[in-house]
């Protein structure tokens, strides 16, 4: 294995560099996945079949909390990668820990929201609108849930093995995933929630 010490750890071998490129290609596919969900959402948004529409069930407070929490977690995972590049393992783990706590907080609010929707009579089978709404939000939420556990295992591994080309590479790829989820949320926030409450 050829290690180039002039580059950050996560890029230090060719395999690492290619893994990062490969993950970007996966993210390209994820953009298209969420594109299809948004296409279906915009098509079905007015098909409420006598059930509630967005303006009736969306509440600004939980949505704002989710947005701020996710934006902040995207910032802290960026700081974690920055600390990692400085070789500061403790700071990196602290920022990663904060990121995961914020991720868990986001999920908590989202679960509360889903319970609220069902109480308002907007279950997944109520109308075409509620089906695509909960499918789109749920797909994003499932990604965050997966990311939470992925990040947790990376945290444990870095703690155990320290910052090596391998663990640094995994951490960096995880940070790409987490930032991407924040980008998707920005579109959900703008074109599902704010558009629905406008």
């Amino acid at each position: 294995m050829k290690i180039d010490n002039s580059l950050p750890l996560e890029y230090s071998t060719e395999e690492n560099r290619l893994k990062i490129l490969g993950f970007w290609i996966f993210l390209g596919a994820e953009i298209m996945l969420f594109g299809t969900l948004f296409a279906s959402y915009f098509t079905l948004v007015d098909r409420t079949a006598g059930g509630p529409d967005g303006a009736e069930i969306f509440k600004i407070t939980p949505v704002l909390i989710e947005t701020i929490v996710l934006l902040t977690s995207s910032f802290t995972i960026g700081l974690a990668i920055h600390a990692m590049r400085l070789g500061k393992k403790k700071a990196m783990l602290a920022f990663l820990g904060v990121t995961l706590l914020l991720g868990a907080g986001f999920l908590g609010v989202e679960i509360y929201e889903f319970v609220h929707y069902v109480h308002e009579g907007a279950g997944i089978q109520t109308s075409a609108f509620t089906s695509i709404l909960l499918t789109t939000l749920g797909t994003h939420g499932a990604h965050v849930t997966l990311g939470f556990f992925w990040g947790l295992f990376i945290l444990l591994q870095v703690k155990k093995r320290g910052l090596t080309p391998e663990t640094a590479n995994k951490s960096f790829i995880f940070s790409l995933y987490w930032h991407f989820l924040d980008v998707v949320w920005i579109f959900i926030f703008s074109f599902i929630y704010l558009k629905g409450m406008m």
Partner: protein
Amino acid sequence: MKELFPAKQVMGFVFSLILTAVALLVYFMDMSFELGMTVLLVTAFIQAGLQLVVFMHAGESEDKAAIYTNVYYGLFIALVTIFGTLLCMIWGYI
């Protein structure tokens, strides 16, 4: 402590909060649908670009060209899917 908070990322975070606040104007102010959608489109895409460049370091390695090509391709397909669907399912019938 200070070295752990690089100015570029702190500024990026502050800017993303400002963009969120601007997007919120469509909720708190009375706007026409067209104006509101314009505000949302502008803030959302700037926000996405900010994440990509400032936080995801999309342009830092020698694979920069491949990474950007791939992101633009994904975005192109997503937008064609969304607007193509709107055209044949909604707008075509008005």
